[in-house]
């Protein structure tokens, strides 16, 4: 199949959108403890009852869909698009609550301003979670095989609640143990040297790459947080300058009144810089952290299949030697062989596509990052120079 690049939110690169199946999240509603996404589909495919329709889905239903892909043996040879992270408004909600409690201790202007800032923050997080969920669906819709999945169609079309409840404690524990077993197994499997150079290289590469992306993602988050804090400080400075401008009656007053709008705008620009870095750099790294994990999982499955195949081979040899259950062993070996070869074939293409996607996404985002940084730095410069001009000319 052709290599495909996906439209999305800069995480994946745009390509001519496929008219046979287009999915997007047209609306979202944030309720007390959950988010309701309106999934909108446009399709010319015959298996849908209508050409255009919408359903409402919650986060758990996305997870159910993702997990159904992972558990499906047929898809063992594909990189399963990573599941979107859970919407997390806890921090924001906490801040909003604290603000409400502290309402009495600040001036009306301060309160309104802080409320607006928090609301903007909440909105930003909200937009991001919508984007993440949308990207997942788009990736699935663009995958030549996954797009045909029945569960996916049910997800898109069935306008009732899928009754997919979140995992209860026991199931979560089971998952936990499964993961432990898998990673232990994964280590064993990874230890097996692969005859195929391509996969051997990919294994080494992905292992290292994944760890480094994890580190870079964490460090970029920290850097951006400091940046946001600095922007907040500049904002506070602006507020105090404003108060000084209204109170001070001496000649210094005119400086305060000139500096207040400057610092106010500077703080907005700094906040924008931090937000853009978050979008273009941090989100990119986070996404590829998840995708590289999905790629690793693919390699694990192939490795598992390889081990099974080799074991089947050994079993067959033993059976032939003993001349007992040879047919059974032969069938078993054939099945393993087919499974392994099927996975290998699609895995190779998947990994090549992964690289193409990755390179394109990094290119797009790094270019946009640089362009935005330049735009903001030039904006800052212009503001500063014009203010300086006014101050200096004013003797």
């Amino acid at each position, binding site marked *: 199949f052709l290599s495909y690049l996906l439209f999305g939110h800069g995480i994946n690169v745009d390509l001519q959108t496929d008219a046979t199946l287009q999915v997007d999240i047209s609306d979202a509603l944030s309720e007390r403890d959950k988010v309701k996404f309106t999934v909108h589909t446009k399709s010319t495919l015959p298996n849908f009852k209508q050409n255009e329709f919408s359903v409402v889905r919650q986060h758990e239903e996305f997870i159910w869909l993702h997990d159904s892909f992972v558990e499906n043996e047929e898809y063992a040879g594909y990189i399963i698009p990573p599941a979107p992270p859970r919407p997390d408004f806890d921090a924001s909600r906490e801040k909003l609550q604290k603000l409400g409690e502290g309402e009495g201790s600040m001036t009306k202007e301060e309160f309104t301003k802080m409320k607006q800032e928090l609301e903007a923050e909440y909105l930003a997080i909200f937009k991001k979670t919508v984007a993440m969920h949308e990207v997942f669906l788009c990736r699935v819709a663009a995958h030549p095989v996954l797009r045909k999945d029945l569960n996916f169609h049910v997800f898109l079309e069935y306008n009732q609640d899928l009754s997919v409840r979140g995992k209860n404690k026991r199931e979560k524990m089971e998952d936990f143990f499964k993961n432990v077993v898998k990673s232990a197994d994964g280590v064993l499997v990874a230890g097996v040297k692969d005859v195929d150079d391509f996969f051997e*290289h990919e294994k080494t*590469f992905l292992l*290292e*790459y994944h760890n*480094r*992306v994890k*580190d*870079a993602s964490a*460090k*970029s988050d*920290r*850097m951006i*947080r*400091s*940046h946001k*804090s*600095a922007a907040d*400080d*500049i904002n*506070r*400075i602006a507020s*105090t*300058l404003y*108060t*000084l401008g209204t*109170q*001070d*009656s*001496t*000649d*210094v007053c005119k*400086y305060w009144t000139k*500096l207040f709008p400057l610092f106010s705008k*500077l703080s907005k620009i700094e906040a924008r810089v931090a937000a853009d870095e978050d979008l273009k750099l941090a989100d990119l790294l986070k996404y590829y952290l998840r995708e590289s994990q999905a790629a690793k999982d693919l390699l694990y499955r192939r490795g598992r299949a390889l081990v099974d195949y080799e074991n089947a081979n050994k079993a067959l040899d033993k059976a032939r030697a003993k001349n007992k259950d040879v047919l059974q062993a032969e069938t078993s070996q054939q099945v393993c062989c087919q499974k392994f070869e099927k996975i290998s074939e699609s895995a190779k293409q998947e990994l090549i596509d992964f*690289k193409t996607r*990755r*390179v394109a996404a*990094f*290119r797009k985002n*790094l*270019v946009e*990052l*640089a*362009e935005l*940084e*330049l735009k903001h*730095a*030039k904006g*800052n*410069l212009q503001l*500063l*120079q014009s*203010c*300086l001009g006014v*101050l*200096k000319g004013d003797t």
Partner: protein
Amino acid sequence: MAAEMEPPPLGNAGETDFRELEDGEDLFVSTVTTLEYPEPSSPEPASLPAEDISINSNGPKQKDVSFDDDPEDLFAEATEEVSLDSPEREPILSDGPSPAITPVTPTTMLTPRMDLGAADMFERSLDEIEEDNNGDTFDIHIAVSDPEKVGDGMNAYMGYKVTTKTSMTIFNKNETTVRRRFSDFLGLHSKLASKYLHIGYIVPPAPEKSIVGMTKVKVGKEDLSSAEFVEKRRSALERYLMRTVKHPVLLKDPDVIMFLESSELPRAVSTQALSGAGILRMVNKAADAVNKMTIKMNESDAWFEEKHQQFENLDLQLRKLHASVESLVCHRKELSVNTASFAKSAAMLGNSEDHTALSRALSQLAEVEEKIDRLHQDQAYADFYLFSELLGDYVRLITAVKSVFDQRMKTWSKWQDTQLLLQKKRESEAKLQFANKPDKLQQAKDEIKEEIEELEGKVEQGEKDFELISKTIRKEVSRFEKERVKDFKAVIIKYLESLVQTQQQLIKYWEAFLPEAKAIA
């Protein structure tokens, strides 16, 4: 008329010196008489102490008129720098001499002096004019440098080099270098405060002690934070000295001059925090605070009421601003550290990336971020030394201003108390009149009369003191506000320029990176 009315320019000019120091400061007795043109906004002659003046016996008006032309001739060669507009000249020529100076007779003073010293003196004095319409011609520059640790262990201290460059005549040399330690600076401030605070002069506060900071240095910790501490202190000491000498009165104080010039200075022991003097200071501070709460002054002067409130507001806002800027400095330092850490991580990522062009671009990104981290560091440095320290200085200065206002309150209170005492004595005197003890009566009456006379004198003095401190404060506040405008403007401009530089560098770095990112194929 004109001839009679022609007091020697020097004599008059000499008199004008003391307009600033009406309370009989003896500063000029030992040093060369220097001239100072009072600010155009200075108080009128009417508020001068009413002393009998042998020279200027006529009313102000006549003097003004007659001196329009002659002074111009006399001063023409010497006074290139100052405009000879009459408004400026009037106050000089129309006030009387202060009692502290020996009035110079016209005849001896006139021509000979003019030829020799006067011209020089005028030139120099004009250099010293701090605030006049032609801009700042104040000429002294002090640098504090070369911090060096002297001694070892807990008795160690930091010695600083203090270099004074000036063309002013009150100094012996054009350039002097001495070595001083921190307690010397504190000692200087302590002396100045004790001399000038109670009469209403805003004495710039010295940098604060820091037991933690100093202990690290003493112990010999050669790390970044103690180097930063020493630099912070050095810069603060330099600003402190410059502020002190910018004050026209403090500049000429013999303690200041000795501090800047003498090679040896007596050790200021009373500045140690845990010394007897230190404890006494703390006790006094506490007592003052209590007194402040109990003195209820009837403020008859709206100006003081208004200014007091203004300074309270300013204090509050500046503290807030200072706190925000300190927070910014902290976060920028943090940002610098985190950016450096990210840069390393990005470099590692670039290394493991197997697509060549992307790998190169990621390494470039890492380099850009590394440069940016240094940029953030420099900016934090500027944030601190320009903006934050200025605000800190002004927060402390405003505390000094507020204490001067408090001194005025104390002076008023003292005057009122004396007045009350006088009243009581008068009442007891009246009572005595009606008492019936003839033998003791006369003696008691005489005693009381003496006491009353004494108190009357004190009351008069108290009133004068109060009016004087009020006047001084008005002048000081006006000077302070002017200084503040200049100071802030200069620093703000420098700070904005530092921000401009940062942005320009950022643009350079990202512009260099952009083609690298685009080259990813």
